């Protein structure tokens, strides 16, 4: 099968990882005429990017992510033109439910804090909520609607980014793990995929998702990255009744209904099987079933037909790493999206492309620098809005 002399390729930018982040970076670079080689260990979009919940939401994100999220929002609007499919993306609205007055106050607070970003958040409560969504169970006292947030089918969207990049001229190698990478100390990286492929490039994007820590560490930048596994569940198709994608203040459960009728539910976590794969934890399944019926009484007679999970990278503050390496010129990191990188993925790709080509980006990303791990984190005093986003969607 494999010959002893590897195929060797020179390129402008080498990308490791074909998730939505790596693939959209490849596409953005090709659109700027930059040569790209992408190495994907498995199949593009087969990891987090292809198995996630499919929430395309800005609401609830930490303020530091909103510039990226807004940039992504524009890209999502152009999806069919950009990647050749709508990926079932729809701006159905994302409704975040308050189950208590305190929750409602937290949502109001977030709406206030984020007002400069013009997310179009609308607070709904009481009578109006009952009238607008009679299908909501009694636990909801109100909530916050971001009308232009939405949902998409990750199984379609993420591979389509890779396919679009390939059509635009990116050289994409699937089933080609990066097994070794060297830097010549001056300006050139050499990436090896076993004995089959050797790629040399002055710029490397580390988009290896939950597995990105190894490369960072090799180049002298150890990161406190750990894997997380949001638990997912899907029901059999039911008559369509719910347009919004739902989240709950404080977390616990989120759900949406796809056009086919199935409800996709998430909440709690899974467990890893072998470093690559994960499943939903039994306790998460149990808790999801209870909460689902509580939230949507219509589910009472439904069956769930499958559960699953994925493997995603988390940093202690649940913010990503998106920055240039401080040890190695040409190395750029983009990973650790903590269960919330699907929506911002396309913008992250563009930002990485800008960093690769121009060395800088117009989108503020200072909050995502590795530098934040240099000093011991400050004691967690005043709660920031990030505490409202401790959920994976």
């Amino acid at each position, binding site marked *: 099968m494999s010959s002893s002399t590897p195929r060797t390729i020179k390129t402008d930018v080498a990308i490791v990882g074909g998730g939505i982040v790596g693939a959209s970076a490849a596409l953005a670079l090709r659109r700027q005429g930059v040569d790209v080689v992408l190495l994907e260990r498995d199949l593009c979009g087969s990891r987090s990017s292809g198995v996630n919940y499919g929430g395309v939401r800005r609401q609830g994100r930490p303020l530091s992510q909103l510039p990226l999220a807004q940039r992504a929002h524009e890209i999502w609007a152009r999806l069919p033109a950009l990647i050749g499919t709508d990926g079932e993306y729809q701006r159905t609205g994302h409704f975040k439910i308050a189950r208590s007055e305190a929750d409602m106050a937290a949502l109001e607070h977030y709406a206030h804090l984020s007002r400069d970003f013009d997310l179009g958040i609308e607070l709904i409560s009481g009578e109006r909520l009952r009238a607008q969504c009679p299908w909501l169970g009694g636990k909801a006292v109100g909530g916050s609607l971001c009308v232009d947030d939405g949902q998409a089918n990750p199984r379609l969207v993420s*591979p389509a980014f890779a*396919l679009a990049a390939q059509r635009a001229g990116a050289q994409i190698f699937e089933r080609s793990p990066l097994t070794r990478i060297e830097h010549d100390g001056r300006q050139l990286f050499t990436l090896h995929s076993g004995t089959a492929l050797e790629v040399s490039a002055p710029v490397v994007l580390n988009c290896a998702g939950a597995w990105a820590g190894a490369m960072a560490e090799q180049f002298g930048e150890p990161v406190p990255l750990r894997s997380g596994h949001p638990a997912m569940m899907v029901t059999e198709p039911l008559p369509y009744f719910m347009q919004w994608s739902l989240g709950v203040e404080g977390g616990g459960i989120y759900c949406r209904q796809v056009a*086919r009728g199935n409800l996709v539910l998430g909440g709690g976590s899974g467990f890893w099987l072998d470093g690559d794969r994960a*499943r939903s934890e*039994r*306790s998460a*399944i149990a808790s999801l*079933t209870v909460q689902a019926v509580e939230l949507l009484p219509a589910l*009472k007679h439904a*069956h769930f037909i499958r559960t699953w999970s994925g493997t995603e990278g988390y940093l202690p503050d649940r913010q990503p790493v998106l920055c240039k390496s401080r040890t190695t010129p040409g190395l750029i990191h983009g990973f650790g999206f903590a269960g919330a990188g699907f929506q911002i993925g396309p913008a992250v790709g563009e930002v990485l492309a800008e960093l690769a080509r121009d060395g800088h980006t117009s989108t503020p990303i200072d909050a995502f620098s590795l530098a934040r791990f240099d000093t011991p984190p400050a004691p967690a005093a005043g709660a920031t809005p990030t505490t409202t986003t401790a959920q994976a969607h």
Partner: protein
Amino acid sequence: MTTKPALQPVIVGAGPAGIRAAQTLAAHGVRPVLIDEAARGGGQIYRRPPAHFKRTPATLYGTEAARATALHGTLDGLHAQIDYQPDSLVWNAQGGLLDVLHGPTQTTRTVPYGQLIVASGATDRVLPVPGWTLPGVYTLGGAQVALKFQGCAIGSRVVLMGTGPLLYLVAYQYAKAGAMVAAVLDTARFADQLAAVPAMLTQPAVFAKGVYYVGWLRAHGVPIHSGIRPVRVLGDGRVAGVVWADGAGREHTLSCDAVGFGYALRSETQLADLLGCRFAWAPMHRAHLPERDAAGRSSVRGVYLAGDGAGILGADAAEWAGELAALALLQDHGTAVDAARMQALQGQLHRLMRFRQGLERAFPFPTDWAAHAPDALVVCRCENITAGDLRACVRETGADEMNRLKALTRVGMGRCQGRSCGVAAAEILAQATGQPVERVGRLRGQAPIKPVPIHLQARQATDAGASA
């Protein structure tokens, strides 16, 4: 080493394999838990009708009546020595606990296990034909279940088609029960059956039974056509007939009001998958199956595999394998077992392999099925995905692997989760990508093994060790 953990075996599946395993454990003074989805033990072949049902074993099981009665008797006699839990679907397995749904009460509980024998059996292997979604089309197994369990035929003028031993058995049982069998249409050629005779003679009694069914059918004027290709099921709202092509490609039309079809069986492997068993391609079975050693040990310590669930070998082999797996379990736990008996069982199973190969020869898988499947053919009926949809996906995206095909097209994403359509989808994918079918991979298993009500009532008194 620390103290020996308590022996806490659980058996999933009360078919021939599971019942013999339970009997063997009980005979060694161990009290196993025997969990089965069905209301009454017996498995697929010796499926038992409801208790108030009047037909005799002789009419229900024909030549197998004595075996069926013996097995049922074994189970009934074990009640005091085992913890038998019928009506109970194992829908998940994780960390030494099984999640079990009790059908009648719709409650779920967890059952801890130290050792587990998976005897989950098989279901029909389905290769669809245009028109197969019409009311009146059943799988061969389904047709047989209707007869055994409900005591009714699927129609009054029935065509049975496909291939495999069940084809002739069901035809015989139907004709014997008084249904009109319009024809038996076998995709295998008569020459295949002839070539298989030497291997089949290694089990003369079983072979004789097969010859007997065919002879009986012929003597009773049931037309049997070999080397055929099903073309389509006719009908408008309900089955009205079938069109089939003979060896020379000529098409024939036959009227009927019901069709039973199938291509032998496929193993139920989801539980083994959830338990983390290593799978490998098994060429004879044309399937990815959980690996096991000669005694039934899986790749996961404490998990044993027996019966059709780990590879189709039939009911007698299931009984032997069940006993053998139980002995292996006991042996691994340091209990003295009859080593000669283990040897003998392994020998019997080994000898059966030649017969099994003969069966494959006599009823070969129709490897040209995918090439003849028209684009409009519905492959996945839950999601209404056609062969053409699958081929278009391959063309447009380069998908060459089952899970990718599933992600992009929804094939296998419905209630059956690929248990019915998976075989056919893999064949289409292999054909469309020009790869051998083993290369397209297998659908990953996930809980639940079958659809489970979301309104799960956790049973309060869970067994010890249950998670919160």
